[in-house]
């Protein structure tokens, strides 16, 4: 009786970290925290408003992040410029999200210019990732 119980507990434990901590994501966040002057922690709600705000600052096809990533980060998105499908950006659905620093930086640069018409700040980037980690 106890054996199967222990086994399933162990399996549960093994499965859980799939969408929890990732050292590479932590390192990316730590870098943004360091670059954020007067840093007092990242905020998921600021990240959410970055994600949902209609900035209309860049390309007219992409007034907001949601134009490509959709209102629901757990859903598939679609590139509003090219029509190409985009995998969900929520960490709970896609545990590889925000773990490759080159990809993260490249995409923030492109996507922020396209939506806000400028680069995102380290604080905005940290907020965005923090929001997606809770999604």
């Amino acid at each position: 009786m106890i054996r199967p119980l222990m086994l399933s507990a162990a399996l549960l434990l093994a499965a859980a970290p799939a969408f929890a901590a990732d050292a590479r994501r932590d390192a990316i966040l730590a870098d943004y925290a360091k670059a954020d002057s007067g840093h007092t922690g990242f905020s998921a709600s600021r990240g959410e408003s970055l994600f949902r705000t209609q900035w209309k600052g860049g390309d007219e096809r992409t007034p907001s992040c949601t134009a490509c990533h959709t209102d629901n980060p757990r859903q598939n998105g679609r590139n509003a410029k090219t029509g190409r499908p985009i995998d969900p950006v929520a960490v709970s659905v896609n545990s590889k999200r925000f773990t490759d620093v080159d990809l993260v930086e490249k995409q923030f640069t492109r996507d922020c210019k396209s939506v806000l018409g400028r680069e995102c700040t380290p604080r905005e980037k940290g907020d965005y990732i923090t929001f997606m980690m809770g999604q």
Partner: protein
Amino acid sequence: MRKFILAAGLALIALPAWAGDDWMPPVTDPLVKKECGSCHMAFQPGFLPARSWNKMMDGLADHFGEDASLPADKAAAIRAYLVNNAGDVAGQGRARKAMGRLSSADTPIRITDTPDFQRKHRLPDWRWKDPKVVTKSNCPACHVEAERGLYEDD
């Protein structure tokens, strides 16, 4: 003799049924797939001549309005792949027709600007306006096997 028959048989099996005139050898290089396939489909290099790919790779900082710059080592590897497999270099499948229709004076950087593309896409406006299409370069919206180089399903 046996060996020959075997080899001929294997060659037949290896040549897929769809390796006709409209087949375009798909992109196999993982770096090209990843970098060129992130925002749009990784288009087969056979659709453009080498001079076009060189021009495109020279202008990544303004890639149809997008800054698609890459680290120099990656850009060089991608350029080499595109040029080596360009329509006028490898010339397999559809590439032969596509290159035949292109004037040597032209260096298009949009596949949709090539005479071969335009000839095959004289379609009513409503088909382009279908919301799943978004833009003419979104091949897989209609050609569901485009990434595998299959375009005969129109």
